[in-house]
């Protein structure tokens, strides 16, 4: 549906900054007469009160209500996810999705949105879990590596000093390398 520009928006094309001045004055709670006065003095335009009122109802108020609804829904979704779990990037993206949904005329069903965002948040949690597991495994590998090194160094020292490696030494090395398992069998006599 094509949106017809209001008179204020048409004037904005001729006078740079006219519309944003009107918006900022409306934000501040200025009266329509005050806005009319400013438009005359700053932009040299005689604009009727009806024109300003029309803009206020069709654009300014609609935009304010829309933003209010968007923010309320956004807060509801954020609270459901738990604020600590939602990064700023995710928040910004979530806001964008909600904004798009409203533009598409979708009723902002928090349940549906929550489901999608839960999946997102769960994905983020899963990624974090995998990273933690990865770090744990890396630590275990490092610890195993050190244990193996220690055991083989002990064995090397023994050999260097002319000592015999006992079955217990071999089992200790096996245990540190492969974990506790079947001990090495005694060689046949």
């Amino acid at each position, binding site marked *: 549906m094509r949106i017809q520009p209001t008179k204020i928006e048409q004037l904005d*094309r001729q006078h740079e*900054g006219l519309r*944003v001045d009107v918006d900022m004055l409306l934000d501040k709670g200025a009266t329509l007469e005050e806005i009319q006065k400013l438009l005359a003095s700053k932009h040299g335009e005689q604009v009727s009160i009806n024109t300003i009122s029309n803009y206020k109802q069709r654009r300014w108020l609609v935009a304010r209500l829309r*933003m209010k609804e968007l923010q309320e829904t956004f807060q509801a979704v954020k609270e459901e996810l738990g604020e600590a779990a939602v990064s700023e*990037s995710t928040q*910004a993206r979530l*806001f*964008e999705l909600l904004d798009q949904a409203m533009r598409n005329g979708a009723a902002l069903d928090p349940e549906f949105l929550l489901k999608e965002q839960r999946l997102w948040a769960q994905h983020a949690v899963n990624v974090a879990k995998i990273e933690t597991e990865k770090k744990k495994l890396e630590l275990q590998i490092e610890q195993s590596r050190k244990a193996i090194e220690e055991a083989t160094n002990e064995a090397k020292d023994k050999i260097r000093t002319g000592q015999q490696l006992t079955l217990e030494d071999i089992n200790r090395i096996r245990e540190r390398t492969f974990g506790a398992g079947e001990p090495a069998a005694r060689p046949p006599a």
Partner: protein
Amino acid sequence: MRNKTLAEHDHDRTEILRYLKECQFMPVTPVTLVRHMDDIFHPVTDEGMEFHLRYMFEKGWVQMNVEAIAGKRPKVVWAKLTAAGLDEFNRRAPGDTD
């Protein structure tokens, strides 16, 4: 699309500051800002919005998060208003109406 004047670019930045103020210091993506500028009949391209945000970041008016992409220029992921940005917006507001 014709090139905008410097004044028009400046008014666009005022509008961006205004929208970020309405979002109450919340992070907002460049896409959301571009859509808003379309709504108010002041279209800004994606590149133009990126430029505005970087300019405003340099001025200290916004805080930004930038994502590095291999082989490409880092992209703005989100931007939010700073206290300095709010002061700048208030400075730009029309004077007392009495």
